């Protein structure tokens, strides 16, 4: 089954380039294009793609607001891959915090883009764990969320806490299974229940929650 993709970028030339790259893969299919955030939200609801490839800076509604609305649809909601023109900055982190599953610099190679879309669609591991964790560690501020997140973590079993720690270290489901000497499916279901108990959209948000609650500290792992 093909992965269905939606592109959101205000530059038609950039969209054309992304579309060509993604459509050239036999298992990927671009099913829609949006020129701004509100278009992206509408099309995501209408077409229910698997992944939305989203530019951050767009007119009328930016990629942050659009991401937040798109992922609010619950488990069935599309996952979001955020694209950024320049460096990894607080906008990128903010996009991850509101629910994007990963990010990519626009200047990344076509191969990296295809890989990123596949990783995000599967949800089995973090996209670029080291960079992601550095970004999260840098911008995470233990704020008002901390208490609520801590009480969520209280509900985790010991095994689930172990799993969360490994997720925060960027381990994939397969690696978690190997490390804890459990089956792949068991690992997957542990990750699933961690996400549910934390009330987060995906493992990227679980990592952010782990840092924001103080469960995992900067520089740890």
């Amino acid at each position: 089954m093909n992965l269905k993709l939606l592109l959101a970028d205000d530059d038609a030339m950039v969209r054309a380039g992304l579309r060509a790259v993604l459509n050239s893969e036999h298992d990927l299919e671009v099913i829609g294009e949006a020129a701004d955030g509100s278009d992206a939200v509408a099309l995501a609801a209408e077409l229910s793609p698997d992944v939305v490839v989203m530019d951050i800076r767009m007119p009328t509604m930016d990629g942050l607001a659009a991401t937040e609305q798109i992922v609010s649809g619950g488990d069935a909601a599309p996952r979001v891959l955020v694209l950024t023109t320049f460096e990894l900055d607080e906008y990128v982190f903010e996009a991850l915090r509101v629910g994007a599953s990963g990010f990519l610099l626009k200047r990344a190679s076509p191969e990296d883009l295809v890989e990123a879309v596949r990783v995000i669609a599967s949800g089995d591991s973090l996209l670029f764990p080291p960079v992601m964790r550095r970004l999260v560690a840098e911008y995470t501020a233990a704020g008002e969320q901390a208490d609520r997140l801590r009480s969520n973590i209280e509900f985790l079993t010991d095994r689930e806490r172990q799993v969360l720690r490994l997720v925060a270290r960027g381990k994939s489901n397969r690696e978690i299974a190997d490390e804890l000497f459990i089956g792949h499916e068991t690992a997957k279901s542990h990750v699933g229940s961690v996400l549910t108990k934390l009330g987060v959209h995906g493992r990227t948000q679980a990592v952010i929650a782990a840092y924001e609650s103080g469960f995992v500290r900067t520089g740890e792992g």
Partner: protein
Amino acid sequence: MRAFFAPWVSARMYAQLAYLALAFPLGLAYFVFLVTGILVGVGLVVVGVGVPILLGMLLSWRALGGFERLLQRRLLDVEIDEPLTPIRGEGSLWHRTKLLLTDAVTWRTLLWLLVRFPAGIFVFVVLVTFLATSGALIGLGVGAILDLDFAEWAEVFDENHFLDSIDERFALPAGLLLLAVQPHIVRGLAWIHVVVGTALLGPSSSAREQALQARTTVLEERTKLAHELHDAVGHTVTLMTVQAGAGRKVFDSDPDFARGTLETIEVSGRRALAELDHILGLLREGEGGGSAPPAGLDRLPDLVREVGDAGLVATLEVTGERRPLSQGLDNSAYRIVQEALTNVLKHASAAPTTIRIDYQTDALVIDVTDEGRSTDLAPADRAGQGLIGIRERAAVFGADVDLGPRPEGGYGVRVRFPDR
């Protein structure tokens, strides 16, 4: 004892001493020169010759101020800045004279030069008295020890019988004490010269603040330009990267698309270069201080060649009788043409463009029109920074501006500078 006389072997003390030794002769020379020159100048103002004499005096005393700052720096080891209105500068003689006359440093310098005379007398008296007295006392003491007779000398040099009144046993210690104190006196006198000199010869704190403010503004402006450059060029180069990646990936499967990406990359590259040129031009303008005068209309052939290198075919037509323009107007006219061409590069895919410069009897008219397909350009696209810049430049000279699509096709920038 050694510590007591240590200052006598310090090079710094001798430099200070040299400065103070010069105080009286220099002060006297300044005083005579300034008082004579100014009085003569004032006296001859009615005849007219006085004005250039006074102007010459003004320039001389500012130059002497520079010499005085040099002396202070060299001999007193003091950091003293040059004033912000230098004697040599740009602009007409009258303009510079006005600047000098309104600069407080000019008048503070005059005050300093005149005060140097009484101060010099004071310094001279203090130094000579101390040296002579300590010398005499030491001589007396040594004489007493060696049992020499100064009676005949004293008749000549000590009419008031000052030395007679002193107990010979105290003469040597007293003389040595005075000698030891001397460097401290020198240091004190030098310190007074440093404090007053810095206050009178250096730029005032408000002028310093202004200069700092101006510098800060320039730096802020540059940061802004750097950001602009990063944003604009960064965006374009990102687009080029995305298109190039896509072109490579589908090179075999979709050759038509791949060819399209090459065209996009070409146009984008051109746009990025134009953007770079434009912003670099702004930066160069900001640097100022260059010896070359700002560019004028006579540089247009060079500009046409430059945009030609970027792929824009521009034709220059000059009509009417060419005449010299004021530097400001000449530069603004040149910049407007430059902005207009940059816009053609950016927005009209470098369509062939005609530049017309018409020297009319009562106006200078500039017209830059391209043959681009203006229909597929949103007006908002053309209302970029460049066009705003054109309006601003034109407004300074009360010029009429006519920007917009031309009925015969293309886009035109027409500015009419009235003769004033």
